Every structure is written in structure tokens, then in C-alpha cells.
């Protein structure tokens, strides 16, 4: 029968079921009435005729049933019947049903949650035209991290070579202050981009226009394109925004376009509010992080050899980007050859020979969040997949035990003519119902969990991420549900093969039972091993997080508030204006109740990348030393809690007219002066005035909690010349977070036009740095708890199955004089043996797995014996507890009762 006919008949049946039944009755009634009339005409009485007519017709009900089937839709009937029956069965065993539903909901919920992140971070493509044609490029240089930055002349030259590909450049994201015409300021994250940036990406504006190459020429009017988010947040989606003039830093800029809601830039996880052409660089004073070799900071960067642009290229009909890679590499080789011609230093030549251009797909944006999260997410995804597998194994065990309990019922059904297919369909229907309910619950769980995590990432970690349950997640959920259902239906379905009516004789063989026990034992060993794996991996991650949290920041994180601000945006440009403001700022803040001291700084305490600069250090034999530099106010060290190890800190006497001085950190001495005392040496940073080192402070983790300390030079801000500060550090008596609003108000009280950005405690900043570790450790803890629970339930289930299976045997043994203790020992020993095997297997698997995550660990080795011992102990205690209870039950069953039942 063709599908369409079947569908039609089913739909007729479903929608007109009652009417059809009536018609059928009417038709058969007519038949009998007509026959009765015929028989009456042959001379029978009416009553006799009707009786005969009915007899001749035969079993009305039977034919009516057959007719109904002939009308079609009987499969649907059977299905409905199966479902009704399955529901009844499940209601009669609520324990089994809820165990399965809870297991599936938790294990699948965990999978969906992790998958939604996996998808958002690793699978999602940029919302642009043909994203798979996009590539990013970096110079790879053996022994060094990839160098992804290029100068604008480089980008132009490369664009000239690479045909038909198009190349665009963009800077890192930097914080900007935006001043609106109504006098309010806001802090934004923005990028400078080449004129063809949007057209290369194939991104279209939501409103207005994108940039054109003309926007990037000298003397062009300064323009900006803003994000949908900023447009909504700041401008209430006012369509009159196009043409509006705002001030970014000090530069007047005209807004010409708004990007669509989904477009949030090319760096996944970062929020970009505003894009401006490279030509605005001098006007807005961009110059944060780029490596500054031979740069004249007073001139625009556009035509200079400043590596400040990342590269994104679109290479159409070029699978894998091979063509583009070859073209870019040829450019680099040409540069390398030019370099080789100029140098005779063997080491330098050797180094240059290995420089290559490496490209990778930028379909999902350039590396950002992906770099930090891809390995953790893959690890989490495999952990939760194992968790689901482990949960399913439990259900298989439960289902097998239940099947055994129903063997008698099944045999009766077979004896009554039910086919194996029907029985399997029945079992599968039951499982499918449970899986679907569990899956529904898991979607809700996953939605709640991922919303919570997303909220945490966005607010506490300022990682922009869009987590949604799109078609990908739904397909994943469906596949998981079906997979889980198949897995848990397969084992009982296979066992229906062993069903014979012989079972009805009441003769129970324990051979089949022990076979099932062996299979279940295998599953349990696997489960225990998986639980140990999850627990060890999580312990390693938690230990890593703990170690990071105990890293000596070198500053007093608990009492220091870091406030970002930008006085230059409010017109503090000259040395005199700036110095007056800086002393007024610290004086005002110092007078506030609850504040101990404050100090201005040219760059922030953590993650605010003070510049890396070339330095000349007297008495150092290190070639071309590079140091980090910060200009700081007088009380900087006491405010941030850095300790003066030797010499002195800065004071107000270190003025512009006094001798130039510097303070260095311990690492400076270690790396640049071979541990000599640095005091008395002179240093010239970035071609500035030579300064005498007057003090040494302890090392601090100023870049990242994860990075090793680096040589650091502090210079007094009063001796810096005109220098814009980016932060005020404030030391408070109590919780610095509570002081934040008051400090902010105090700054605005001096001048409302000063943009004040984020206020954070150093601890918060350190935590941001640990987003990945937090996420992994927290999720890991949840998953470990679940896998422990699942393993314990598994042990419990198997032991009690074993106990019930051998009930008769135990009863006989006890009748023959065995004690309860010996029975208890028998059941328990068997489980304990499994625990032992599972434990060893788990340790081996864990050791193999830990090697994979070694790169994520800090302060703890992948084979830390303590962690393995604790994990093993934890599992053993949990599962021994779970095994003991049913063993005890089996041993304390009344033998008379058991034998009687048999």
C-alpha cells in the first residue's frame, strides 16, 4: 500500500473514527434487514427470518473487527494500544520509571548544556555571506607564539599579491570613552578597521552604510559604525541616529551605520560596540598594545611599520585556502629573503629561515574564545558523553532486572500467540516513552543551566556569548534520545530470544541468570571506571583552580579597587593640567572615609597591558632587554600593597625638577642583572631620560594570573612629561566593592566630563582571568557528583538483582546451616571484586585521559598520586555503601518465606 493511501485511511480513521463505526454498524444492519426481508418472502415468520439472517451472517463482532482493520489504521490502533499498555506498565512500577527519567534528564541535560556552549563557541559561524571563505593569517615562527599582527603597508602589499582573494585588517578591541552631545559619557569596546573590512566579511548594515575605502584615507571625515547592542542600549533604537555626531576619546566622529543584531564582530566572545576606520587612529590616540619598533608616535600609524592589524581574508572558490596560503607565504618569503640579505648573524639567519605564514579558517571568527575554550569544551563534552553512557548502562541493568521479573508474564504472552516482534515493540515503546519524558525534562534543565552559565559569563566575565537552542541543539537532543533509547532497548530485546514456553513450567534455570549477571558485571566495571575518570579529571581541575587562586598576585587584591578613567577625553592634555588633576584626584579620594590611600597609574593593575618597551640597563649583559613600564603616582606601592624589598618607594619629592628615578621588580634583577642588586644602576626606557634605580619591589602578576612575572619598571608620573593616566588605584579599609560608587562620584565631582569606566577589585580582575578554570571546575563538580551517584545506583541495582536472583539458593544454604554473615559475605564479596576491577580500570583510563588535559593544569601533575587515591577512595566508599544495603537485605530475608514462594 502506498504511503499516501495509508495516511489517508489513517487520517480518516483518526478524524472520523466514530462516524466510520456508525456507518459500519448501519451497513451491516442494512444487510441483515435485507436478508430478513428475503427470508420473510420465502415464508418464514419475521422473528424466525431475523434469527436465520443473523446466524447466516456469522460472528458480527468478528467481521466488524476485521472490517475495521480492512479500513486501515490498524497500525495506529496497535501503536496507541502499545502506548496505553506501556503507560499502564510504567505506572505499576513507578520506581523504575522515575529512576530512568531522572537519569536521562540529568545526564542528557548535562550533555545539552555543554553542547550548547560547544556550538556557540566552536561550531557557530559568523553571520555573514559564505563564512567558510574567510581565513585569518599569522606568522608562525618556531619557538615563539604566532605573531598575528601586521602593519598597514604590509596589509596593502599582501592585498596586491593575493588575487582573487580580498584582505582586510582590524585592530584588537580597546576600551573607548564616548561623549554624547547631551554631555553623558559611556565606556565602549571598539575596533579600528580597514575601509574594506565589512565588505570583505560580506556583512551588511542594518541601518545606514558600512565603510568604503574612501573612509580610510587621510583627511576623510571621521566616521563610525555601531553595533545593534549599543544602538539599543544607548540610543533606544532611534532611527535618526545616522549622521549623529559624537565624541570618541577627543575626536568628533559621525555615526554612519548600525550593524544587524547578530553581528558582534569577528572575535568570538568579545563584544564590539563601535568600529572606526584606521584613519582615526591619531585623532583618538589609539596606541595601546602594538609592538612599537621604530615608531614615531607623533605621526599617524597608517604609513608606518607598526604591527597593529590582524588580518582577515576572503578567498572565494579556494577550498582549504591553499591558494591564499601559498600567495601569503610567498610574500613572507620575500620579506625573509630581504632580512637574510641584511643580517650575517648565524642565529638570526637560522631563525629567519623557519618563518612561515600560517592561515586558518575564520568561518567562526578569528581565534578568541575558541583558543581558550576549545580543549576544555571537548573535554567537558567527552565527560558528559561518558556520563550519559554510564547512566544508560544503569538503565540497561535496571531494564534487564525488570525483564527478568517479567519473564513469566512474557512467556505467558508468547504462549498465547504474541509474537517476539510485538513484545520487543512493547518494550521499546515503554523505553521510548521514558526517554522522551526524560529528554523533555533535560531540555528544560539544560536551558536553565546554560542561561545561568551564560549570565555568569556575561556579567562576571564579560564574555559575550549567545547561547540558544537552535536546530543544531534539537538535532543533537533527538539523536541522543534515540541513541539512549536504542541502547536501553537492545539488551532486553535480545533476551526475548531466550523466552520459551518452557519457562512456564515453573522451572527456573539459574544458568541464564548468571549469564545476565556476567553481562551486567561488565557494564558495572565500565561505569565505575567512568566515575573514577570523571572524579580524577575534576579533582585535577579543581586543584588547578585552587592553585591559581593561591597564586601570590604580589598586590593586595582584597583591598584594592581599580578605577578606569580617561582624563584626556575631558581636555586634560598639557603637563600642567594633568599634574594638577592627578594631585587633586588623589587628595579628594584620600579624604573619603574608608579610603586608606590612592594613587594614579598609567596602566591598570591587571590585564591592562602596560607597554613592552626596549630598555638600556647599565651593567646588564642581556642583549636588547624588553621591560614593561608603568608611570605611577607617589603612593602607588603602599596603595596596591606591593612590598618595597630594598631601597625606597616614590615620594612627592620625585618631581620633574628632581633626579629621574625608577623602581624595578625582583624579576628585573633576576633576568637583566643576574641577581645583582639593581639599586644604583641606571635605566633608559624607550629612548627616554636615563633614570637611577632607587628601589626594588616584589614581583606581581600584572598581565595575567597565569603568566610568569616579567621585568617591570615603574617611573614617577611627575617625571613622565605629559602623560594620560588610565587608572586610579584605591586602597580601602573594608570591602572595596562597596566603595566603588562613592569613588566614582568623587571623580565626577571634580569634573563631570571625565569618562569613568569600569570599577573593579583586583580580585575580580583575577577571577576574570580564571573564567575557564572556574567553568570547568564547577561543571566538573556537578558532573562528578552525577557520575558518582550513577555508579552507586548501578552497584546497588546489580547487588540487589544478584540478591533476588539467588534468593532460593540462599534459603537452601541457610536451611543447611549457613549463617547470615556467610551469605552477606558472599553477595558483598562479589560486588567488592567488581569494585576492585572497576577501580583499577578507572585508574588506568584516568591516567591516559589526564595526559590530554595536562596543558590545562597548573601546580599539579596529571599523575598526582594523591588525587588518584582520593578519587579511588571516594568511589569505593560510595559504592561499598551502595553494595552493602542490598547484601544485607539478601542475607536477612526469611529462608522459609523464600522457599515457600518458590
Amino acid at each position, binding site marked *: 500500500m502506498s504511503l499516501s493511501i495509508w495516511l489517508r485511511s489513517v487520517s480518516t480513521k483518526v478524524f472520523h473514527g466514530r462516524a466510520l463505526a456508525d456507518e459500519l454498524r448501519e*451497513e*451491516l444492519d*442494512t444487510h441483515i434487514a*435485507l436478508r430478513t*426481508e428475503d427470508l420473510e418472502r420465502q415464508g418464514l415468520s419475521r422473528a424466525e427470518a431475523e434469527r436465520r439472517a443473523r446466524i447466516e451472517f456469522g460472528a458480527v463482532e468478528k*467481521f466488524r473487527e476485521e*472490517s475495521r*482493520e*480492512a479500513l486501515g489504521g490498524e497500525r495506529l490502533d496497535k501503536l496507541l494500544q502499545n502506548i496505553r499498555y506501556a503507560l499502564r506498565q510504567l505506572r505499576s512500577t513507578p520506581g523504575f520509571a522515575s529512576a530512568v527519567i531522572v537519569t536521562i534528564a540529568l545526564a542528557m541535560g548535562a550533555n545539552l548544556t555543554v553542547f550548547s556552549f560547544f556550538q556557540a563557541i566552536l561550531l557557530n559561524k559568523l553571520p555573514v555571506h559564505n563564512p567558510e571563505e574567510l581565513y585569518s593569517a599569522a606568522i608562525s615562527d618556531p619557538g615563539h607564539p604566532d605573531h598575528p599582527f601586521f602593519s598597514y603597508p604590509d596589509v596593502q602589499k599582501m592585498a596586491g599579491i593575493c588575487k582573487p582573494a580580498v584582505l582586510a585588517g582590524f585592530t584588537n578591541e580597546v576600551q573607548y570613552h564616548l561623549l554624547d552631545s547631551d554631555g553623558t559619557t559611556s565606556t565602549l569596546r571598539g575596533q579600528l578597521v580597514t575601509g574594506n573590512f565589512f565588505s570583505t566579511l560580506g556583512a551588511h548594515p542594518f541601518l545606514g552604510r558600512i565603510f568604503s575605502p574612501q573612509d580610510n584615507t587621510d583627511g576623510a571625515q571621521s566616521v563610525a559604525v555601531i553595533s545593534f547592542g549599543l544602538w539599543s542600549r544607548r540610543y533606544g533604537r532611534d532611527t535618526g541616529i545616522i549622521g549623529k555626531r559624537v565624541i570618541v576619546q577627543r575626536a568628533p566622529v559621525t555615526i554612519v551605520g548600525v550593524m544587524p543584531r547578530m553581528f558582534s564582530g569577528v572575535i568570538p566572545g568579545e563584544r564590539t560596540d563601535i568600529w572606526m576606520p584606521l584613519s582615526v587612529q591619531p585623532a583618538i590616540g589609539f596606541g595601546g598594545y602594538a609592538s612599537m619598533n621604530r615608531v614615531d608616535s607623533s605621526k599617524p600609524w597608517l604609513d608606518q611599520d607598526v604591527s597593529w592589524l590582524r588580518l582577515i581574508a576572503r578567498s572565494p572558490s579556494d577550498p582549504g585556502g591553499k591558494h591564499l596560503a601559498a600567495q601569503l607565504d610567498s610574500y613572507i618569503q620575500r620579506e625573509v629573503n630581504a632580512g637574510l640579505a641584511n643580517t650575517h648573524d648565524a642565529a638570526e639567519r637560522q631563525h629567519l629561515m623557519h618563518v612561515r605564514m600560517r592561515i586558518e579558517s575564520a568561518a567562526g571568527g578569528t581565534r578568541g574564545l575558541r583558543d581558550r575554550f576549545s580543549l576544555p569544551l571537548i573535554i567537558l563534552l567527552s565527560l558528559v558523553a561518558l556520563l550519559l553512557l554510564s547512566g544508560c548502562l544503569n538503565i540497561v541493568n535496571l531494564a534487564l532486572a525488570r525483564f527478568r521479573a517479567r519473564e513469566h508474564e512474557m512467556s505467558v504472552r508468547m504462549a498465547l500467540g504474541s509474537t517476539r516482534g510485538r513484545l520487543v515493540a512493547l518494550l521499546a515503546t515503554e523505553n521510548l516513552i521514558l526517554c522522551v519524558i526524560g529528554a523533555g525534562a533535560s531540555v528544560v534543565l539544560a536551558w536553565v543551566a546554560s542561561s545561568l552559565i551564560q549570565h555568569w559569563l556575561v556579567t562576571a566575565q564579560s564574555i559575550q556569548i549567545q547561547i540558544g537552542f537552535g536546530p543544531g541543539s534539537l538535532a543533537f537532543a533527538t539523536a541522543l534520545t534515540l541513541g539512549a533509547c536504542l541502547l536501553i532497548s537492545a539488551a532486553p530485546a535480545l533476551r526475548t530470544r531466550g523466552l520459551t514456553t518452557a519457562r512456564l513450567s515453573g522451572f527456573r534455570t539459574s544458568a541464564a541468570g548468571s549469564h545476565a549477571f556476567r553481562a551486567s558485571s561488565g557494564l558495572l566495571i565500565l561505569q565505575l571506571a567512568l566515575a573514577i575518570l570523571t572524579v580524577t579529571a575534576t579533582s585535577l581541575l579543581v586543584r588547578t583552580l585552587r592553585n591559581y587562586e593561591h597564586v601570590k598576585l604580589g598586590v593586595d587584591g582584597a583591598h584594592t579597587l581599580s578605577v578606569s578613567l580617561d582624563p584626556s577625553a575631558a581636555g586634560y592634555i598639557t603637563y600642567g593640567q594633568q599634574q594638577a588633576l592627578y594631585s587633586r584626584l588623589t587628595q579628594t579620594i584620600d579624604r573619603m572615609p574608608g579610603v586608606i590611600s590612592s594613587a594614579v597609574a598609567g596602566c591598570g593593575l591587571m590585564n591592562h597591558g602596560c607597554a613592552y618597551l626596549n630598555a638600556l640597563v647599565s651593567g646588564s649583559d642581556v642583549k636588547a632587554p624588553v621591560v614593561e613600564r608603568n608611570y605611577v603616582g607617589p603612593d602607588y606601592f603602599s596603595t596596591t600593597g606591593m612590598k618595597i624589598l630594598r631601597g625606597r618607594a616614590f615620594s612627592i619629592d620625585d618631581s620633574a625638577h628632581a633626579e629621574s628615578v625608577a623602581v624595578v621588580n625582583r624579576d628585573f634583577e633576576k633576568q637583566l642583572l643576574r641577581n645583582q642588586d639593581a639599586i644604583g644602576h641606571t635605566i633608559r626606557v624607550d629612548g627616554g631620560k636615563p633614570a637611577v634605580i632607587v628601589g626594588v619591589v616584589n614581583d606581581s602578576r600584572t598581565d595575567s594570573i597565569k603568566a610568569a612575572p616579567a621585568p617591570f619598571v615603574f617611573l614617577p608620573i611627575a617625571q613622565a612629561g605629559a602623560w594620560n593616566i588610565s587608572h586610579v588605584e584605591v586602597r580601602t579599609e573594608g570591602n572595596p566593592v562597596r566603595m566603588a560608587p562613592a569613588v566614582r562620584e568623587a571623580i565626577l565631582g571634580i569634573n563631570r566630563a571625565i569618562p569613568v569606566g569600569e570599577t573593579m577589585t583586583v580580585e575580580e580582575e583575577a577571577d576574570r582571568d580564571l573564567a575557564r578554570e572556574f567553568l570547568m571546575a564547577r561543571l566538573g563538580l556537578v558532573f562528578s557528583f552525577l557520575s558518582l551517584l550513577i555508579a552507586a545506583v548501578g552497584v546497588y541495582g546489580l547487588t540487589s538483582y544478584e540478591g533476588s536472583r539467588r534468593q532460593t539458593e540462599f534459603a537452601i544454604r541457610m536451611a543447611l546451616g549457613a549463617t547470615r554473615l556467610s551469605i552477606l559475605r558472599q553477595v558483598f564479596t562479589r560486588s567488592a571484586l567488581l569494585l576492585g576491577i572497576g577501580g583499577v580500570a578507572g585508574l588506568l583510563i584516568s591516567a591516559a585521559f589526564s595526559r590530554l588535559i595536562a596543558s590545562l593544569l597548573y601546580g599539579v601533575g596529571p599523575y598526582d598520586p594523591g588525587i588518584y587515591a582520593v578519587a579511588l577512595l571516594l568511589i569505593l566508599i560510595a559504592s561499598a555503601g551502595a553494595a552493602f544495603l542490598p547484601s544485607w537485605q539478601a542475607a536477612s530475608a526469611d529462608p522459609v518465606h523464600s522457599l515457600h514462594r518458590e
Partner: protein
Amino acid sequence: MAGEAQLLPGTLDLLILKAVSLGPLHGYGVLLRIAQISGQALLVEQGALYPALFRLVRRGLLKASWGTSENNRRAKFYELTSAGRKRLQTETEDWNRLVAAIGTALATRPEEI
């Protein structure tokens, strides 16, 4: 009833199609028509007729519509669809071939081998 022949399996559908091809009939009418055209030799079990009729309707070989019987009863009438007509033709040919083949086979004498 003497002279009744047992229906060969599968022939009921063919008989119904033939009966209905001679003009629209209700269920009881189909029964009478089969008896009539087979010279009362073939009698169909009454109840078994309806599942067969519905099967044919579902396969699209018959179509049914409500009408009034000769003695003014509401009854469901069956008639052939064009698919039914085609099916009747091919099945009739198949049947004739089968009967001829079996007839030939049964008429074979030893010397003809």
C-alpha cells in the same frame, strides 16, 4: 446447500469486482449477484464479504456512496473505479491463463509425455 463450491483463496476479490462491474450494488446485492452469476454454485460467507469490500475500497479499486435500495432503505452502494476496472481485466486474464494451464495439465495423457 448442495452444489456449493468452496471459494479458492483470493478469488473473492475477483468475484466482487466482477459482480460490481455489472452495475453498482450494495453489500447484500453483491452477495446475491455472485450467487446469481455463478448459477448459485458459489456462495460467499456473508460476514466475510464486508472486510473484502472495505479492503477493495481502501486499495482504490471500488468506491462507495450512500444511496437508497430498491425497497427504500438507506444502503451503501459500491461501484468500480477505473483502477478497479483495469484490475478486473488483468485478473480475469490471469485467471483464464491459469485455468487453461491447469486444464491442459489435467488433460494430459501418458502417451503425450
